[in-house]
C-alpha cells in the first residue's frame, strides 16, 4: 500500500511536470492579453526537436536550446499573425497545432525507432530516502527540478519587476506600459513567444527525460489542458502548482485505482482528469473572480442577456 501511494505521488509529479511548463508559459502570455492554445504545438515541437537533437549530438543542453527555438517559432507565428495581422487567436492556434503535428510526424518518423540516453535522474542524498515523497520529489531529472521553482520564478518576474508590471499592464491597461516607456507591441510579442518557449521545454522534458521516447503526437493534449488550467490558476503563477498537480493527480489516480482493483469502471477513471478540470473551471467561473485580465474579458465575455 505504501509503495502504491509513493507511486501515486511520483506519477502525479511526472504527469504534472510537462503541464506546469506549458501552463506557466501560457499564463505569461495571457497576462499580456493573448491566449496561446498553440502551446500544444510548441510542446510537440519541443518533444520532437529535443529528441532529435539528443539522438544526433547526445548534448542535452543543446537539446533544450533547440527545443526552445522550435517552441519560439510557433510562439512567434502565433504572436505575429495575431498581433500584427489581426488573425483570430483561436483559429490561428488550431492551425498552428495541425502544422506542428504534421511537421513533427513527417520529420520525426525516422526518430521513432531510435533510442536515446536522455536526462538521468539526480538523487539528492538523504532527502531522496524520505518515505512516500522522497522518490517523487528528490530523485528527478534536472528539468523536473527546474519546474519546481518555475512558478516562483514567474511570480517574481511578473510581480516584483518593472518588466513584469509592464507585461501585466499589457493585458489590463496598456497605457501603463507606455507610460513606463515600454513598447507594448514588443512586450506582447515577447510574452507569447515565451509561452511557446516554455511549453517546448515541457515537451523536451516529456520526450528526453520522462519517457525517453518519441512518437507522433505524443503531447496528447497536454498543452490544451495547460491552457485551460491557466483559468483554474486565476492567472496567478503560484497557483500553477495546485492546478498542474491536480491534473497530474487525477491522471495518476486512474492507474492507482486500476492497480488496487477498485470497482470503478475504467472509462470513468480515465475521464477523471478532464471532469475535474471542467468542475474546477466551472467553480472558478461561478466565483466571478475579477482576476481575469481586462484584455481577455473582451474575448471571453460572459453572455449578457438583456431584456
Amino acid at each position, binding site marked *: 500500500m505504501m509503495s502504491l501511494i509513493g507511486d501515486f505521488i511520483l*506519477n502525479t509529479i*511526472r*504527469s504534472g511536470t510537462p503541464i506546469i511548463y506549458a501552463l506557466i508559459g501560457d499564463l505569461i502570455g495571457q497576462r499580456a492579453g493573448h491566449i496561446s492554445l498553440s502551446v500544444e504545438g510548441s510542446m510537440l515541437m519541443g518533444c520532437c526537436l529535443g529528441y532529435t537533437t539528443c539522438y544526433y549530438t547526445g548534448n542535452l543542453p543543446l537539446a533544450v536550446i533547440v527545443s526552445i527555438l522550435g517552441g519560439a517559432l510557433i510562439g512567434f507565428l502565433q504572436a505575429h499573425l495575431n498581433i500584427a495581422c489581426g488573425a483570430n487567436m483561436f483559429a490561428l492556434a488550431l492551425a498552428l497545432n495541425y502544422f506542428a503535428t504534421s511537421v513533427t510526424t513527417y520529420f520525426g518518423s525516422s526518430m*521513432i525507432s531510435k533510442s536515446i540516453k536522455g536526462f538521468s535522474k539526480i538523487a539528492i542524498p538523504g532527502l531522496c530516502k524520505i518515505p512516500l515523497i522522497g522518490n517523487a520529489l528528490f530523485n528527478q531529472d534536472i528539468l523536473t527540478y527546474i519546474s519546481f521553482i518555475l512558478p516562483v520564478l514567474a511570480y517574481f518576474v511578473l510581480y516584483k519587476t518593472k518588466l513584469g508590471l509592464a507585461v501585466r499592464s499589457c493585458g489590463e491597461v496598456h497605457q501603463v506600459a507606455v507610460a513606463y516607456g515600454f513598447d507594448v507591441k514588443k512586450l506582447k510579442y515577447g510574452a507569447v513567444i515565451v509561452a511557446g518557449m516554455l511549453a517546448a521545454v515541457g515537451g523536451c522534458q516529456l520526450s528526453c527525460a520522462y519517457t525517453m521516447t518519441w512518437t507522433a503526437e*505524443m503531447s496528447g493534449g*497536454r498543452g490544451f489542458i495547460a491552457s485551460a488550467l491557466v483559468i483554474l490558476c486565476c492567472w496567478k503563477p503560484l497557483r500553477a502548482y495546485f492546478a498542474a498537480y491536480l491534473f497530474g493527480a487525477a491522471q495518476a489516480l486512474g492507474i492507482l485505482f*486500476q492497480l488496487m482493483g477498485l470497482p470503478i*469502471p475504467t*472509462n470513468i477513471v480515465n475521464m477523471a482528469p478532464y471532469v475535474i478540470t471542467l468542475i474546477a473551471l466551472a467553480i472558478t467561473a461561478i466565483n466571478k473572480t475579477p482576476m481575469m485580465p481586462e484584455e481577455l474579458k473582451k474575448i471571453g465575455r460572459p453572455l449578457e442577456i438583456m431584456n
Partner: protein
Amino acid sequence: MKKLSKKVMSLLLAVCVLVTLVGCGSSADTSTSTTGGADSSEASSSVHPGEGATKMGVILVGARDDMGYNQALYECCMSAEDELGLEVLVKDNVPEDSSCEAVMEELIAQGCKLIYATSIGHREYMEEVAASHPDVAFYTCNSTGNDMDNVCVLTTNLWDSAYVNGVAAGLMTETNELGYIASFQIPVVMASINAFALGAQSVNPDVTVRAVFTGSWSDVGLQTNAIDSMASQNIDVIAQFQDYTKSIVEHCEELGVYSIGYHCDTSSLGPNTFIIGTLDTFVKQYEVFQAAMDGKFEPGIVRGGFEEGMCANTPVADFCPEEVKTAVQEVEDKMAAGEFTAFTGPIYKQDGTLVYEEGYVATDTELDGCDFFVKGVIGEEN
C-alpha cells in the same frame, strides 16, 4: 421588437443549418450505396480482380519504421516481394481521410493490380476506389463484414497469440503477478486479456493479471507511469495491447521486468527481458495474393488464428529455460493442428459464474462481442 425579430432570425438560421446538415448526410449516404451496388454487380460478371498482377500497392497510416503496427505490416508486405516476386510500392503516413483515395488511384495508375489498405480507417475510402476499379484486388485487415466482389478482408484472431504469450508469461513469472497495459475496453482487447490470463493459468493456476487501461493507444507518459507502478507492485511480466510498443519494451528492460511484445519483433530492445511477442504477420496472405495473381481471387473474409495460418509469434527469447520453449511450441502446434483454441470451456467470469461450459468452444462471433473478464483478471468491466 427589434430584439424579437433578431431571435426569430437566429432560430430560422439554426433550423436552416440543421436541415442542410441532415440533407447532406442522407444524400451522401445514398450516393455511396448506389455506386457501390452498381459496380459490384458489374464486377461479378467475369472479371478476375488482380489477375496477372506484377505490382502491389500498400498504404500505411503511419511510418514504415514505427516499431509497431505499420512496421509489422510493412515487413509483412515486403516479404511478399521475395515470396511471390511482386514489386511492392509502399506509401506511408497516408491519412485516414478522402486524400487516401488519391494515393490509391495513383498506385493503380502506376500499374498496381493489388492494393492493400492496411488501416481500418482507410477502409471506407478504399471501398470507394474499389467500386470504380473492379479489375483490381483490394485488401484490408482486422475488420469484419464485407460485401464487395473485389475486396478481401484479412483478420487475425489475436487471442490465439495472446494465449500463447500467456503460457510463456505464466512460466516465467516468479511473483505470479502479471500486468497488462491496454487502451480501451473494446471486445478484441478484452478477449486478448482474457486469453492471456487463460494461457498463464493453464501452466500456473495461481497467476493473476492486473489490467491497466490508459485510454490511449500510444500515450507514452501514461505507459511509463503504469509500468513503474506495476513494477513496484511486484508485477514481473508486463504484456500490452498498444500501438506504440517500443517504449514499453525499453522501459521494462531498464527496470528488469519481463515484457511481452506486440505488432513487430522488438526483442532487440529488450535482450534480457523480452520474452515473446505477437506478430502482425498473416502467414497465409501469400496464398491469398497468389490466388489473386492466378485469377482466382476470392472476395470475403479470411480470418483465423494459428490453425488458419493467420497468426504468428516471435520465437521465445534465448534466455528462457527450455521448458518454456517446449511449452510454447506445444500449444502453438496444438492450435495449428486445430486441436485446441484459447476459449475452450470451462471458462469462468471474474465473479466465478460459468460462461462457457466444459468442452464448449467459443465462436468468433461470440468473442467479437466479448465484454467480460475471466477469473484471475483484476480490472473493472465497464
